[in-house]
């Protein structure tokens, strides 16, 4: 803490931590093990789930913060996913030499450039979206939902205009294809990368939210916007910043998601947005930790049921959501509000 006096910490009551929800993930994984049968398949599915969960988290974290901070539910978030992916593709295609090269460093450099382009592009777009679409309807939920939905339609259509409507291949760099084998288990490289990215985003976010003044302001703003303003902070600027960051994260997540599927269409955002909504609902609107946990749960559920009973895979996530909402109607980690 940035204080010169360090008060006594002897008789501090312990901070209660609510860890119960954290145990759901390992329980689901353990229950799935005998059902799946083969341990190697189970490991593959679990890693795939963690990778998918990471990508969903990257996308959902921005949305949940935007909602928490400013009470704005941006249905247009899905457009940033798709646009990010298209921008990354636009960068990757001319770099095909690097993408197909055998040198991992060139592969990663191409990927890094693509991700940067996607994040800058979607960040800038987020800035414009906030100004044009969202700003006039603060505090009006109904209009917000309608307007951001309209924004989503327009953005998706513009993708068709700019990039064409047909399905495009998304070039996955050579060095990220295939798997690393550890004993009997095959760990796909790209999935490991996705997990690493997801964890990094999560850790950086936690550090920012807990250790920096901006992070404290965001958390305080999620709880009580008016009071933050009454302390003299211009929360509008903070919000624009979070909106840009959240959009950029959607762009990053969209890039990863498209690489994972190796193809992309303008509808790519819509497919994953459903899971993203489920994640932020079960996580607790506005909660980053809940969002992370929710993403993992949803992805585990989707991957296990996708293997065990592919036809009802989507329904299983709805059931998961229903079960969690019956247990905790505000989600796993509800955010305190005035």
């Amino acid at each position, binding site marked *: 803490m*940035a204080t010169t006096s360090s008060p006594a910490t002897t008789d501090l*009551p312990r901070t209660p931590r609510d860890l119960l929800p954290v145990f759901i993930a390992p329980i689901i994984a353990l229950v799935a093990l005998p059902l799946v049968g083969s341990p190697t398949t189970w490991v593959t599915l679990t890693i795939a789930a963690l990778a998918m969960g990471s990508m969903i988290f990257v996308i959902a974290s921005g949305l949940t913060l935007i909602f928490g901070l400013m009470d704005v539910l941006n249905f247009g978030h899905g457009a940033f996913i798709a646009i990010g992916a298209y921008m990354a593709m636009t960068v990757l295609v001319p770099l095909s030499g690097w993408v197909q090269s055998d040198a991992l460093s060139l592969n990663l450099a191409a990927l890094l450039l693509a991700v940067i382009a996607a994040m800058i592009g979607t960040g800038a777009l987020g800035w414009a979206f906030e100004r044009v679409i969202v700003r006039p309807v603060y505090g009006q939920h109904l209009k917000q939902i309608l307007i951001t939905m309209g924004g989503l339609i327009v953005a998706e259509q513009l993708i068709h205009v700019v990039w064409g409507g047909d399905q495009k291949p998304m070039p996955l760099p050579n060095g990220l294809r295939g798997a690393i084998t550890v004993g009997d288990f095959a760990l796909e490289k790209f999935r490991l990368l996705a997990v690493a990215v997801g964890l990094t985003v999560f850790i950086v976010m936690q550090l920012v939210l807990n250790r920096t003044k901006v992070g404290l302001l965001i958390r*305080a703003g999620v709880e009580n916007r008016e009071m933050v303003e009454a302390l003299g902070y211009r929360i509008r600027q903070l919000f624009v910043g979070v909106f840009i960051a959240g959009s950029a994260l959607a762009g990053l997540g969209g890039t990863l998601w498209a690489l994972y599927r190796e193809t992309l269409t303008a509808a790519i955002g819509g497919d994953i947005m459903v899971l993203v909504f489920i994640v932020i609902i079960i996580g607790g609107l506005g909660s980053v930790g809940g969002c992370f946990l929710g993403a993992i749960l949803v992805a585990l559920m989707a991957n296990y049921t996708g293997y065990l009973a592919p036809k009802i895979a989507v329904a299983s996530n709805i059931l998961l959501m229903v079960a969690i909402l019956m247990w905790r109607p505000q989600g796993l980690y509800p955010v305190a509000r005035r």
Partner: protein
Amino acid sequence: MSEPLLSLEGVHTHIGQYHILQGVDLVVPRGELTVLLGRNGAGKTTTLRTIMGLWPPSRGTITFDGQSIGGRATPDIARLRIGYVPESMGVFADLTVAENMRLAARLGPPDAARLDWIFGLFPALKRFWQLPAGLLSGGQKQMLSIARAIVEPKALILIDEPTKGIAPAIIEGMIAAFKELKRAETTILLVEQNFRFAASLGDTVAVMDDGRIVHRGTMEALAADSVLQTRLLGLSLAAHQ
């Protein structure tokens, strides 16, 4: 007489379709503690919120230190060194006491001497420094809320019913704190229902009813005039003592 620090002239405030403040004229003299009294629903909280810019005034002028602040954004008003302790206290429950204070010190880390002074006034804050503010008791939250408002030197502090639901022992501490603030020449506008508490601190007093100021004068005069008290505050005294 010197120009007052804050004055409201004919201020009207609408919340949605409801016309809440109906022409408030209020004067807060420099360096004094002004008490705003009135029964429940009179519009006291709305007045403070209007001053802070949390509700925009629909008519009238609000002048602070010579400049008109009506209709400005809340952060800009707060930056004129106006502190606000809302009725709901507004502590950030998810943040620790330390983090709450860190945010309150907008211009930089809180100064050690000032923190010690605050810890002197409210020792509980020191004990629970690293505890999430949501776990504090109601009285401790109130102390934190006041502490936040004074961690940086302020020209004016708006305080909304700090004694609501607070034990007498802690009220004594609060009286001491406010007296200290007065000594430091901080102007205070205090909304209060507890007349004894108000009378022990107030220099001037204004009484509101139905969105208007119905009486203005010195606290001394009001405290001495029980007939006037009954007429103005009969209801609230009966209800709150």
